[in-house]
């Protein structure tokens, strides 16, 4: 079990190094193998953490962190397949070798940094891991070397770095709070901090939690510090957008959850839940409104991510065990669904040569495979049965009703329905509306750009169905344990 933790940290560095040395084909093979190996190892950790946290050196895995590991490793694996098809199109350009080397170096390092975040033991190391994800992903956003990509990358780097500056301040204040009990020199590891939590000074913890929600919330995409998110998601290469949206936002949310654990143990859960409820509802409201009238396909999906991060925050704010289990399931299902949606969007953008939703019509004729799967992903994102997000959002709403937050649950349902309207309108028009007649419009069936871009979406769809219809028993146990850890169990 301990070897797995170390391997998960180190393995993604191998294809990153290979990317600078070997031809592209071999690097692609190595990346796919590594991605699936990481997902396999994350799966193997699931039964291992049922009995409590596994630690080795400064690495630690418990049920909460394994949930996030699963989401990250799943996307790492499927997106690495998709990237093969995505890059195939530009293989004949002059600059391809250089571009592919940089892309795979960044892609693997980005995945590695995201895997480090849930694996490290301690808030300081967690901050460092998340800062590394920012730095690498900002370069990946800029990799297309267009004016808009440069603009998006600059905004992303500046806003996210400033946010993480605030998060560092939060970490330092929590360090100060801990030092009153644990002595002046300690390393912010989770277990001792949680044990000492009841004796920490309240003001410092309160301040740290608010700063952490604001700081890490910048990377999560919570309102009002979400402004970089739609730009970066729409301008990054599609495989990177899928990772940003499905995995990176959740990883940053994981950091907020760690602060939540300590704060709830110190102050009781009323204060942190109140803070998360405010940020959650504001984000959900903003995202639902932007989704309703959005012209750019990738920005549409980006705002949908803001919506889902809002749902996560609201779910934690409800606090009932079933809502917390729903939140963790939501992390997994959102990773699969948003990965699929971005991968489908990438195929549409490639096939139609535009990101404008109004110019994509007749998708079903042009893309007989990708269009129905994209529609499924959008329906999954709108929490339609039988997909995993239906189950998770159902649990969150049920948890809200259980804990007497009827108004919150009603607002959640209303806003999610509003967002569903926007997403479903855009997607059904793209897929079913007939293509305009006339000269210059492309007509006729297919071909699909690449089989490599379809296979990972099939895997994602299968995962969504499994999560929605019958989650495996081990996974249910994992989610229950994770919810218990979040709810304050030792």
């Amino acid at each position, binding site marked *: 079990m301990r070897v797995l933790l170390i391997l998960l940290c180190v393995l993604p560095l191998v294809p990153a190094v290979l990317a600078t040395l070997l031809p592209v084909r071999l690097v692609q093979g190595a990346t796919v193998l590594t991605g699936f190996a990481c997902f396999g190892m994350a799966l193997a950790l699931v039964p291992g953490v049922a009995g409590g946290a596994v630690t080795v050196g400064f690495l630690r895995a418990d049920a909460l962190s394994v949930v996030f590991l699963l989401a990250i490793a799943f996307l790492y694996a499927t997106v690495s397949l998709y990237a093969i098809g995505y890059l195939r199109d530009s293989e004949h350009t002059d600059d391809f070798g250089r571009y592919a080397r940089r892309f795979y170096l960044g892609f693997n390092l980005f995945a590695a940094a995201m895997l480090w975040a849930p694996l490290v033991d301690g808030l*300081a190391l967690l901050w460092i891991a998340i800062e*590394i994800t920012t*730095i690498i992903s900002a370069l990946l956003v800029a990799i297309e070397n267009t004016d808009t990509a440069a*603009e998006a990358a*600059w905004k992303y*780097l500046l806003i996210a770095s*400033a946010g993480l*500056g605030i998060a560092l301040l939060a970490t330092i204040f929590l360090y100060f709070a801990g030092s009153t009990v644990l002595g002046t020199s300690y390393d912010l590891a989770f277990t001792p901090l949680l044990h000492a939590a009841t004796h920490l000074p309240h003001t410092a913890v309160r301040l740290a939690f608010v700063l952490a929600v604001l700081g890490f919330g910048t990377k999560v995409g919570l309102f009002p510090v979400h402004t970089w998110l739609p730009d970066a998601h729409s301008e990054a290469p599609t495989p990177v957008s899928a990772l940003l949206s499905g995995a990176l936002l959740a990883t940053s949310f994981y950091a907020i959850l760690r602060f939540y654990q300590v704060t709830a143990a110190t102050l009781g859960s009323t204060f942190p839940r109140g803070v998360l409820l405010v940020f959650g509802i504001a984000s959900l409201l903003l995202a639902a409104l932007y989704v309703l009238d959005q012209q750019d396909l990738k920005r549409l999906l980006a705002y949908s991510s803001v919506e889902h991060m809002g749902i996560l925050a609201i779910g934690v704010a409800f606090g009932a065990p079933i809502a917390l289990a729903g939140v963790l399931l939501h992390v997994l299902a959102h990773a699969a669904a948003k990965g699929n949606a971005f991968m489908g969007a990438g195929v549409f953008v490639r096939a139609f040569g535009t990101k404008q939703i109004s110019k994509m019509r007749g998708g079903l004729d042009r893309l007989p495979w990708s269009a129905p799967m994209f529609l499924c992903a959008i329906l999954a994102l709108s929490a339609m049965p039988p997909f995993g997000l239906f189950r998770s959002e159902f649990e969150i709403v049920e948890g809200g009703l259980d804990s007497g937050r009827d108004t919150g649950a009603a607002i959640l349902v209303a806003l999610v329905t509003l967002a569903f309207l926007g997403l479903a309108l855009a997607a059904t028009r793209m897929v079913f509306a007939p293509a305009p007649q006339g000269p210059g419009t492309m007509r006729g069936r297919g071909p699909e750009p690449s089989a490599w871009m379809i296979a990972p979406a099939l895997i994602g769809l299968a995962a969504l169905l499994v999560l929605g219809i019958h989650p495996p028993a081990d996974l249910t146990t994992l989610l229950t344990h994770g919810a218990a850890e979040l709810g304050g169990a030792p």
Partner: protein
Amino acid sequence: MTTLPLAAAVPGAAPPPGVFVGAATAISVLVLLVEFGMLRAPLLRSQVRLYALQSLLVATLAVVVGAVRNLPELYALAALSVLLKVVIVPRFVLRLLRDSEAEIAGSGALGAASTVLIALGVAAFAVFSFNALDISSPVLPKTALAISAAVVLVSFVLMIVRGDVVSQTVGFFSLENGVSLASLVVASGLPLILEVAFLFDLLVAVMVFGILMRVHHARSGSLTTAQLTRLRG
């Protein structure tokens, strides 16, 4: 440190500050003043030099705290941060400025006077609100904490009102200086290995900021962010 007999004679009065407290407070006030200097400086290169000065002041405070409170690892931290934040980062940014040859003065959304007035208000808010918190430090006076909060908030003003990539970068780096100052006050025992990791992170961030500044300059031929308005909605 000895207390003056006069203060001891008045029951209930706080003892006057000793040399250490006075020095620490003075240095942190200087850090804040330099932050205002950056806000005010019209030339980009003088902004970068002020950043170097500010970093040097924070490192000096680390040495003073290390000597008086007997925390030897702070010496190593101070040496590392001088190397990184006083030598490497400013040289890096100054070279970029020389290479770009585009403009030597940044553009502000507001005039210098309005900017400074806003920053004064923001700084006062930070100082008064942090003084009202019941957070006390074993190594440094509480004033330093309130001032570090003011440095952080004023650096946000700098990033917001200045519309060029160099000022925004310098604003972010000085935000980091404010956080360093806060960490000296409330977390001076933070293990050296973590501090070094933070600094290393900063170094990588500096390189990425540099790369993206170059990308921006190569694409737009200038350092201003005024035309970064294509992405909205």
